[in-house]
């Protein structure tokens, strides 16, 4: 998956989890949870959405990496 594809996927999953949230509002170094007011259940739904779309397992220890835009893009583009 390219970085652009990863971003597209993140956006589409995020739209289902939090329709009003906008990925562009997330600053560099900010976590999705902070920037978009995602609670733990929203974030889990986000991870579930990514896992379903990619078939990746996404263990809990990877959640930190998935919680920033750059980290998530890197994770998706290197492991899928």
């Amino acid at each position, binding site marked *: 998956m390219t970085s652009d594809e990863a971003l597209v996927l993140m956006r589409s999953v995020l739209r289902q989890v939090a329709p009003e949230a906008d990925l562009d509002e997330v600053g560099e170094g900010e976590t999705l949870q902070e920037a*978009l007011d995602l609670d733990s259940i929203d974030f*889990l*739904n986000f991870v579930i959405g990514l896992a379903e779309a990619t078939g990746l397992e996404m263990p809990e220890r990877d959640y930190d990496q998935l919680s920033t835009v750059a980290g998530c893009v890197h994770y998706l583009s290197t492991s899928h």
Partner: protein
Amino acid sequence: MPSLGADMEAGKVTQWLVKPGDQVHRGDIVAVVETEKSTIEVEIFENGTIDELVVAEGERVPVGAVLARLSARGPELVPGEAPPAPAPPLPPESVAHEGGRRPSTPVAPPSAPTHPLEAHHAAVVSPLVRHLAEQLGIDPGVLSGTGPGGTVTRADVERAVGAPREVEPLRAQTGRRGPSSPFARRLSSELGIDLAALRGTGPRGAVTEKDVRLAALAARPKETTPQEATNEDRQAAMRRAIGALMARSKREIPHYYLSTTIDLSAAASWLEQANLERPVADRLVMATLLFSATARAVKRVPEMNGFFIDGNFVPSGAVHLGVAVSQRTGGVIAPAIHDAERLELEELMTRLTDLVKRARVGRLRSSEMSDPTITVTNLGDLGVDEVFGVIYPPQVALVGFGRMKERPWAEGGVLGARPCVVVTLAADHRVSDGMRGGRFLTEIDHLLQEPGKL
């Protein structure tokens, strides 16, 4: 019009999912109602046949008003008899369905009139997407969603507009004839659209109402999106509704507040272990444990669980745990997880995830909105240490969990760091006092020390 939360005074029927003659069963979703705070799917609590829809789509009526009439027996309408036309003042959307059928109903085979809801059930649509679909004259109920879980996405709607023929057979069944319908002609003159310039997508190239609306939409300058104005109105209405209820709570309920810091080491390591073996969709979050402990604890301290009505406390046998969900557009709603104290953690997690998801996209059900017996808020997820709650009348208690974080913890003369959470209780002094409240918090603590038993 059911009361969908104590702060609701009126609601607007935005969509009927049934029509006269339809058979309905207890639990079927029959209408979509918009309140100041959310969009709710209204369930029916009787079996029977719809005789009459009293309130038209788009109409706003107070709580308690009759929405529809139902007869307990089988259908009374003879086949072929047209259902009564809805009363005037109708919004244009309704006039468009002058054939007496919603455009979505033809997708159900005529031989199966008892399940008119299935087509709608298949389509999960967020309010934003639904709004877009309405603007474009598309019925999202007939689209097959490509989003997660079959959700109809913005892209699905846009695609349907781009390929009108995909949905047009449904419109064709409403029996429009000729190059343009009288309604399309009237609409076009109202909207200032030149009918001759339009390419018709209807049967035999007829210009349909939708073609006119699409042309009008395309001609409209981008800045004036009516959606934004509506959202602003709704925001204001929502703040008023919340304000009125919270003012009533502060005025009538003599609150008292207690707090306890709970060591979550046992819960956290149990959770980590449990999640190691689980695929992502089955994983639990700490909130599930906290909520389960709350629901089980309140069963043992019944003064916290129920309603204060007409000067008396009415305890509830069941624990319907209201979960405060903040809406990203502002405001908070607290739908209920029914019989939460009896649910296994996995089931509670599933319900919680589903509830939060639906709360976000505005697809809660009426039964969830009307009867929480105690409310819990997990605001700590978003970073605060403690929550000082305001009770939702007529409930008598609200439990708040702060953020789970490592804190210094002294035990047996040894100082260490442990994951902790501060749990707070706001309770009603008319019903209980601090000792019982303290007992309740202690119960929650004890239950969280043995997470395997939850």
